[in-house]
Structures are given as structure tokens and as C-alpha cells.
């Protein structure tokens, strides 16, 4: 089939993006990391590097394990038990997924560090209980648990909806305890969901920067070491570590994918499924009730801490805050002082630019990919999604290496400009957007298009009357996802920003460095509200669309 002008232009743009902003940076990174072989030998005898590798891997595996246990258990409870206000609880349990990592991390710091509110609270009111501050590994793991269990919860819940209630009943009437039924029947059924979420959590933990950066004390992790060596000016070391981090993540991905393939067919079985009705579910025991209450506290306390501190004048952590009265002064500052609202505007504009580029690039890419099955399209699919597996820290290093001077893709240097940040966000988010639209395309019936053609509509008309409106929910969903990801981005931002282009996330962090809590908390609260509002609106909009 001959390609039309639109398709040719799309291809040129897609290739400009893939070559200029994905392959060229990867090439530069590889080049830089091996530029001086003597240094490599030096690195290889440096125990710090081994420590970082080991720590990153350990952290990721531990994160997978603890999030798996919590997430799957929660999905089990929610599916098999009667719980009051279940849908509210479910939304609640998903809050952390929408919380930008830097906000979660800072909120935990305000709460559980040695100056944190939890301490002050116990000292003031329950001084007979001695608390230890949560620090280092414990704090990082706690934050990872907070941010990552929702993946397991989501995936496992979705799978459980497809589990035939008769199967668990069969197990029970054959004499199996609930415990045995869980381990022998339910858990194996959840295997694919568990592997999929393990992949996500493993990759995210490997790439995690905020929590180790703020809580790591003396432990080294790959992401923080990349940052440190860049700040110390050893760009080859940071490139070398970036390569190691990326390779390890991809190897992990590969291994997990092997696990997934091990167990492909087991869950496909014919026959109708008995859906568990809410009425015939079991009542929740006291221990589980307690457990759920503690969990809700675990989810809300960090956010309540932020909210509370946003009403307390600066420097609250250094004082005994509980005697102070709340004021709105932090909020009024936000609207009156340019230095304070500028980061917000920066973040907003950058997120907006990212969304626009992704919208454009992602839509043409997904339309191309979903078109004909050809080598070219497969190539595009693979390389467009590649950055999804590359940690943000590494993307930043690649961009620094590639666009710090004249080059044939952008001509002038981009480092230090406003634009470099949306570019970094775009590279990471085009896969997110493309995936969302591709899912939308997969779900809709191509027969509709054919029906429309056969009714005499032209191709263009079909696109705008049928295809586009049908894809709109996934396009909007994708855009909102990209917007959320970009508004709170911290990991690559911290390597790429300048004073003039600083974003909310950077500001939250630097406030923290200066022991300021008020404005930081205000930023956190606002960012969180924006994200939640966006999620809420997108859900509402999409639900309405679907019900029409």
C-alpha cells in the first residue's frame, strides 16, 4: 500500500524523535562510560560501586516482597470479605499511586524522622512510650511499601474479579482451610498478576531516587551515586553507573518476563464463572479490622502531616509545633511572592508542553504501530517504549551528554534551558501515552470503521466521526497521566534544572534542606490536590463516556 503524505510526515517525525532523543543519547551514554578504559579498571576495584549495586538490588527485591505481601493480602480481603464503605476504602488504598514520590518522601520525613511530628506527638502526650526514629533503610522501605503496594493491589484485585467463586468453594467443601485455599488455589491463580506487578515494582525500585536520596544516610544506591558523581564532576563515572543501572533493570525485567511465560495457560478455563456476591461474603474479623484501620492511618498520616504543617509558620520541625496556632500565612505568600509561585508556574508550563508533545507524538506513533504489522512498525514500537525501562536519573545523564553543545538534532545546546526539562519528561512519557492509546485501539472494534466506510463515509470523515471519538477517552486518560507524571517529576529534574527553571519538586526539596516546612508543605498539598483532582476528573469523565 502506498503511504500518503500524512503517514510519511508522521514517520519522519517519529524517526527524528527516536534517533535524536532516544538512540543518540543512548549512544552518547555508552560512549562516555567507556571513554577512558583506565578509569573503568579503577571503578571495578572500587568497593563503593559494588555496594551501590548490591544495595540497589537488595532494596528492589525487598520492595517487591513487602509490597507483594501487603498488596495481595489487601486484594484478598477486599474481594472475599464484607467491608463497610468498600469502594471508598478501595479509592483510599490507591492514593499512594497518585502521590508523586518526592511528596511521599518529604511527607514521611516530616512524620517519622527524629524531628518528625510523630515524635513530637509522643513526647508531648504519650511520653512513656519510647519511639525510635525511622531512618535509613527502614524509612526507604517504608516509603517504597507505601508507593508500590497499590500496584499489587490493583493487579491482584482485577484478577480476583475473574476468579470463579465455585473454585474456592470447591476447595473448601473438599476440606481445605481458608489458609490452604489461599496458598494452593488463589495464589497460583494470581501468579500472572503478581509477576506483572513485580516487574513494575522492581523497575520502579531500581529507578527510585527520592527516597534513597533523602533517607539513605551512608548507604549507597546506584541512583544516588549517579547523582553524586555527576555533582562531583566525574561524568564518566556517572555514565558508567547509569549503564550498570540500566543493564541491571533490563536484566531484571528479562528474568521476571521469563517467570511470566512459565505459567501461561493455567488460568484459561472454559465455563461460566460464579461471581461472588457482596451478600455471601464473610464478615471481617477483629484483627483484620484493626489491620485495615492501621493501614488507613498509614496512608493518611503523611498527607495529614503535610496539610497540618502547611498551616504552621516556617521551621516547624525545630519547634514544639503542637502549641502553635494555625495560620494561612504560607498560603498567602504563595500568591504574593514571585519567588514562591514561579516554581509552580514552571512546573505547570513544563507539564503542559510535555502533554502537548506527547499528545502529538504519541498519537501518531500509536496509530502507526497499530496499523500494519511490519518490521518498521515493530521497530518503532520497541524503540518508542525503550525509555520506559530507563531510570529517570539515567535519562538526565544521557541528555546532559547529548545536548550540552552543538549537535545535529537540536543545533544549539539545550542544557540549562527551559526546554530540556519537558524534553526529559517527554522521553519518559511518550511510552506511557502510547500504551494508553494502544490499549484504547485494541479495545475498540475495527468493524465499526468498516461499517462506517461501507456506509459511504470517507476516510477522513471516518477518522473524525468514529475513530477519534472512540479513542478520545484513552487519549485524555493518557494525557492526564502524562500531566501528573510531569507535574511532580523530581528525578531527572534535579540533574537538569537551573535557578530560573526550578520546579515545585525542586523547591519542595530545597525548602527541606533549609529546614523550612511551611512553603514546602504548601507545595506538597497543592501538588497532591492537583494530582488527585486530575485523577478524579479523568475517572469521572471516562466513566461517563463509557456509560453513554
Amino acid at each position, binding site marked *: 500500500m502506498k503511504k500518503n503524505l500524512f503517514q510519511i510526515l508522521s514517520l519522519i517525525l517519529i524517526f527524528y524523535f527516536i534517533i535524536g532523543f532516544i538512540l543518540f543519547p543512548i549512544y552518547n551514554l555508552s560512549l562516555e562510560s567507556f571513554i577512558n578504559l583506565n578509569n573503568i579498571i579503577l571503578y571495578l576495584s572500587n568497593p563503593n560501586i559494588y555496594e551501590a549495586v548490591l544495595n540497589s538490588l537488595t532494596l528492589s527485591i525487598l520492595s517487591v516482597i513487602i509490597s507483594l505481601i501487603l498488596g495481595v493480602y489487601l486484594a484478598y480481603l477486599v474481594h472475599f470479605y464484607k467491608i463497610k464503605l468498600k469502594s471508598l476504602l478501595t479509592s483510599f488504598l490507591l492514593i499512594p499511586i497518585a502521590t508523586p514520590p518526592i511528596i511521599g518522601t518529604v511527607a514521611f520525613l516530616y512524620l517519622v524522622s527524629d524531628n518528625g511530628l510523630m515524635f513530637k506527638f509522643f513526647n508531648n502526650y504519650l511520653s512513656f512510650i519510647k519511639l525510635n526514629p525511622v531512618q535509613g533503610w527502614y524509612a526507604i522501605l517504608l516509603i517504597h511499601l507505601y508507593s508500590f503496594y497499590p500496584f499489587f493491589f490493583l493487579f491482584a484485585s482485577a484478577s480476583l474479579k475473574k476468579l470463579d467463586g465455585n*473454585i474456592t468453594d470447591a476447595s473448601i467443601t*473438599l*476440606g*481445605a482451610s481458608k489458609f490452604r485455599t489461599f496458598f494452593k488455589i488463589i495464589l497460583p*491463580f494470581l501468579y500472572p498478576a503478581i509477576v506483572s506487578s513485580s516487574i513494575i515494582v522492581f523497575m520502579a525500585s531500581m529507578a527510585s531516587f527520592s527516597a534513597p536520596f533523602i533517607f539513605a544516610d551512608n548507604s549507597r544506591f546506584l541512583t544516588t551515586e549517579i547523582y553524586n558523581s555527576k555533582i562531583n564532576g566525574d561524568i564518566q563515572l556517572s555514565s558508567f553507573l547509569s549503564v550498570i543501572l540500566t543493564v541491571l533493570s533490563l536484566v531484571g525485567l528479562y528474568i521476571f518476563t521469563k517467570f511470566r511465560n512459565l505459567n501461561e495457560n493455567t*488460568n484459561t*478455563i472454559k465455563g461460566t464463572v460464579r461471581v461472588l456476591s457482596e451478600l455471601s461474603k464473610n464478615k471481617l474479623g477483629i484483627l483484620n479490622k484493626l489491620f485495615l484501620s492501621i493501614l488507613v492511618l498509614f496512608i493518611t498520616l503523611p498527607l495529614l502531616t503535610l496539610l497540618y504543617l502547611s498551616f504552621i509558620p516556617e521551621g516547624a520541625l525545630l519547634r514544639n509545633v503542637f502549641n502553635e496556632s494555625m495560620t494561612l500565612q504560607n498560603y498567602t505568600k504563595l500568591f504574593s511572592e514571585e519567588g514562591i509561585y514561579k516554581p509552580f508556574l514552571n512546573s505547570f508550563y513544563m507539564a503542559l508542553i510535555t502533554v502537548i508533545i506527547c499528545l502529538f507524538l504519541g498519537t501518531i506513533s500509536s496509530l502507526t504501530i497499530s496499523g500494519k504489522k511490519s518490521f518498521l512498525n515493530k521497530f518503532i514500537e520497541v524503540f518508542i517504549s525503550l525509555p520506559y525501562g530507563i531510570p529517570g536519573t539515567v535519562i538526565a545523564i544521557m541528555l546532559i551528554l547529548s545536548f550540552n553543545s552543538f549537535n545535529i538534532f537540536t543545533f544549539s545546546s539545550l542544557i540549562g534551558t527551559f526546554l530540556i526539562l519537558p524534553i526529559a519528561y517527554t522521553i519518559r512519557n511518550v511510552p506511557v501515552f502510547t500504551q494508553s492509546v494502544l490499549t484504547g485501539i485494541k479495545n475498540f472494534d475495527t468493524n465499526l470503521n468498516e461499517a462506517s466506510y461501507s456506509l459511504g463515509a470517507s476516510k477522513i470523515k471516518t477518522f473524525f466521526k468514529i475513530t477519534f471519538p472512540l479513542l478520545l477517552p484513552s487519549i485524555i486518560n493518557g494525557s492526564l497521566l502524562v500531566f501528573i507524571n510531569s507535574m511532580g517529576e523530581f528525578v531527572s529534574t534535579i540533574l537538569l534544572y537551573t535557578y530560573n527553571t526550578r520546579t515545585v519538586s525542586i523547591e519542595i526539596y530545597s525548602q527541606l534542606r533549609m529546614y523550612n516546612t511551611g512553603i514546602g508543605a504548601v507545595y506538597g498539598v497543592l501538588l497532591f490536590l492537583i494530582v488527585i483532582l486530575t485523577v478524579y476528573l479523568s475517572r469521572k469523565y471516562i466513566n461517563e463516556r463509557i456509560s453513554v
Partner: protein
Amino acid sequence: MSFLILEKISKSFNGINVLNGINLEVKKSEFFSIVGPSGCGKTTLLRIIAGLEKPDTGRIILDGKEITYLEPQKRDVGIVFQNYALFPNMNVFENIAYGLKIKKFDKAVIEKKVIDILNKVQLSSKINSPVYSLSGGEQQRVSLARVIINEPKLILFDEPLSNLDYLLRIDTRAELKRLQHESEITSVYVTHDQSEALSLSDEMVVLNSGIIMQKGKPTEVYNNPANIFTAEFISHSNIFSKEESLNLLNLEINENQVTSVLQENLRFENEDSSDIVVSDIQFSGMFTEFLLKFRDKIFKSVIPYESNYDVKINDKVKLIIAKDKFKVIELN
């Protein structure tokens, strides 16, 4: 002494009564059926017997012990499900051995028992097959074997044959009966298919909207329906109102009665002055079904196939029914 006794079992969901004071008695080793239309509460009743659902009121007594609130694990009651409910992550052997493993039988014993039971259900060659590779009929036999192997006190069948196609259903029905007979395990069998209930059961009850309409042996229920519902649902009988009885059967009954006549007992012959018209003739192999129209009402007659009926569509006919084929049903 009955082996399974249900006393005044009631259950409602969301304030809607699904079961209304069910009383049942099943004898040891009996094959007992519950037959009723979709949604009448059959599955709910079975789930209550198995302990998967708690009744709102009433008692269940099994083998002399009250089990109303006993956990399902401890009841020793097996279920064969309509959709088989095999464990998808296990092969045939593991599925069948599941219950024995829980009871901590010896490995060798388990193996022997599984092989025996697989022989009985004619699936020996599939012992190591994953269950999703089996056909529907094979899956159903595995699910039966998985229950029988534990020799439970009671087996509950929830429309186990309804997902199979016609011929397989007839075959499996016979096999089921044979296996139940050999194992002598007391069975409660639920179905919406009256012919299944009639052919399998020692005793049966007819259930409608959570109420038991009639109990008895299959032939009794079939021949002597106690109410219009049973007459229509079980034997597909023709029902004649007081006026119709008088006009067509020459039978005098009172206001609170109707007459029921089995389709195979309804005979007729040409009579040009009659008000009954042959509205359709459906040939179905062994039998021919005649639809006879009287005013707005259709009566059915089923007659063994003969090559030359002298009746054609639109012919006028009168009914000829032997007096002893009328069953008078009291309305209440």
C-alpha cells in the same frame, strides 16, 4: 430414620425471600432430586446444605447430627458444580487427590485411589493432563471423581449435566447413576430438567419460588401432579378449567378444581361439528405432537408415530379420553 433432614429452612437476600420454610428428608444411599425452574432457589438450597451459605432460620441434620452452623470443611459434603470448578493450576491427578492430601493420606494410597477412580470414570489416560485440555464431559467426570474419592456422607449435584450437549448428557446421566449406585453415597441432585429428575431419582421434590410444591417418587409425581405447577412443569399436562372440563371432557368439577390430562393420554378423532381445530402437527421422530386449538387455548397431544394419520391441519376434532386418565386437581 432419615439421613439428611432439612427443617423449615428459609433464606432471603436483600429482603427478597429465596427459600421459604423448606422441609426435606433424604434416606441413606438415596438418589434424591430437586427440580424447579431457573431462579427458584435450587443452588441456594444446595449451598446451605454444604455450609457455603447460612440459612436465616431452620435446621439441617446430617447422619443424626445437627450441622446447621458447622463449617463447610467439617461437613463431609461434596459438591459437583455446573461449571465443574476444577482447579486450573492443577492437573487431573492433583485435582482428584486434593481432598485426600488434606486428609493426609499416604502418597501410595492416594495414588492407588486416584488410579482406581480414574478407571471408574474412564479417564485413566488423562491422569497427567492439565485440566484445561479436557473436553467438557471429561472435566465433569474429573469433578465427579474429585468428590467421590473422598467418600463423603453426601454429594450435592448442581445441574452437573447442563453444560453438556444432548448425547453426552444422556450418556453421562447413565454413568452418574451407575457410579452413585455402586458407591451408595447419598446424593442430592438439583436440576431444571424434569426428564433428568424423573430418570435418575429414587425420590424427588418440585421446587418453585422457594416453596416445595410436591414430593414423591418420580412416577407418583408424574402421574399424580398435586397442583397446576407440577402438572405443567413436570408432566407438561393439559389443564382444563371447570367450563372446559364440562364442554370437552363431559366432566363436572367445582369452581376450585381443574382437570389435568397427560399429553400422551389426550386422544382425539375427526368430528366436523366440534369447536376444536388442529392448529399444527409437529413430527419429531418417534412421536408426533398435535396442537389442538379450542377458542384461545392450545391443548397438546402426543401420539407414537404412525405413517398415516387421517388428521390434517385445520381439521375439526373431538377429544376421546379414558375416564381414568383424568386427574382432578384442587386449587387452593
